[in-house]
């Protein structure tokens, strides 16, 4: 790699980092860039391309949309129509708590013996002589 190629590579890296507006570059980088731009057609072409890109970004910026009142009204209506995530989350915890409590009550009323299957067996065969 020649010295010029090295400077061009550095310039392109700076161009991608700082953009096409040289006035916003750090002073030392800007001075190096200006020196290179005086003698390199390729550097000038890349700078020009970057400036075109930035100009076209500004020209094609989209801003128009529904008025603020309509957006706000839709947002407020949407809240009424769908439960918020927090309500759903709290309801889920409440449901989980209720199930745990119910399970605890069942276990308390029908305590398992040494072999849990005994309880199930007794329930299934109640009234039947299993001897």
């Amino acid at each position, binding site marked *: 790699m020649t010295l010029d190629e090295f400077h061009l590579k550095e310039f392109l890296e700076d161009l991608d980092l700082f953009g096409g507006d040289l006035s916003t570059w750090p002073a030392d980088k800007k001075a190096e860039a200006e020196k290179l731009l005086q003698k390199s057609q390729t550097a000038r072409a890349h700078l020009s391309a970057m400036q075109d890109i930035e100009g076209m970004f500004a020209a094609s*910026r989209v*801003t128009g949309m529904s008025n603020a009142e309509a957006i706000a009204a839709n947002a407020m209506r949407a809240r009424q129509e769908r439960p918020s995530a927090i309500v759903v989350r709290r309801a889920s915890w409440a449901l989980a708590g209720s199930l745990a409590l119910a399970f605890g009550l069942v276990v308390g009323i029908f305590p398992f013996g040494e072999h849990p299957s005994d309880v199930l067996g007794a329930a299934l065969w109640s009234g039947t002589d299993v001897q």
Partner: protein
Amino acid sequence: MLAAGVVEESDDVLLSRAARGDGIAFARLVERHRSRLMAVSTRVSGNRAIAEEIVQETFTRAWVNAPQWKPGAREHGTVAAWLSRVAVNLSIDQSRKAKVLPLEAAADPEDPAPSADAKLIEEERSAKLQAAIGELPPRQRAALALTYDQGLSNSDGAAAMNISVGAFELLLVRGRRALRIAMLEGDGT
């Protein structure tokens, strides 16, 4: 428009008023941020209609979550950064589902005029750029949109994407490089 002498309320104040059900405060917040959110959402999603839906959804989430907003909380950042983060994430999700098309504005034909050749060249270059933007990964597109469409600094852009400044700069560098190379293709440079 505010009358002379009226102090403009901060985003935090407007959002806390919205949390108490103040629709006027909320509409003022929407008015303040909708344009920049529309710009970035359109750029990232590549579709105005979808961008309008994204902006609507962003403000719906703001209204729903307003009671949980804690001004100054590190996980939230500023209201503006939080809104940007929601809009950018929704836009990135959307653009991953569907291929981004060039913005409609770039494809509109113009009537012939004395400078028709220059206009044609300009339109072709604009269409080339829009196509190149559409080819970028969504996160690179978002970083460019936050920089050029919202005018955010690298640190604010990073906050809006919830990434480090270094990671944001890397996205910018890669995005700019891809666009620069795409624009110079065929120019013999």
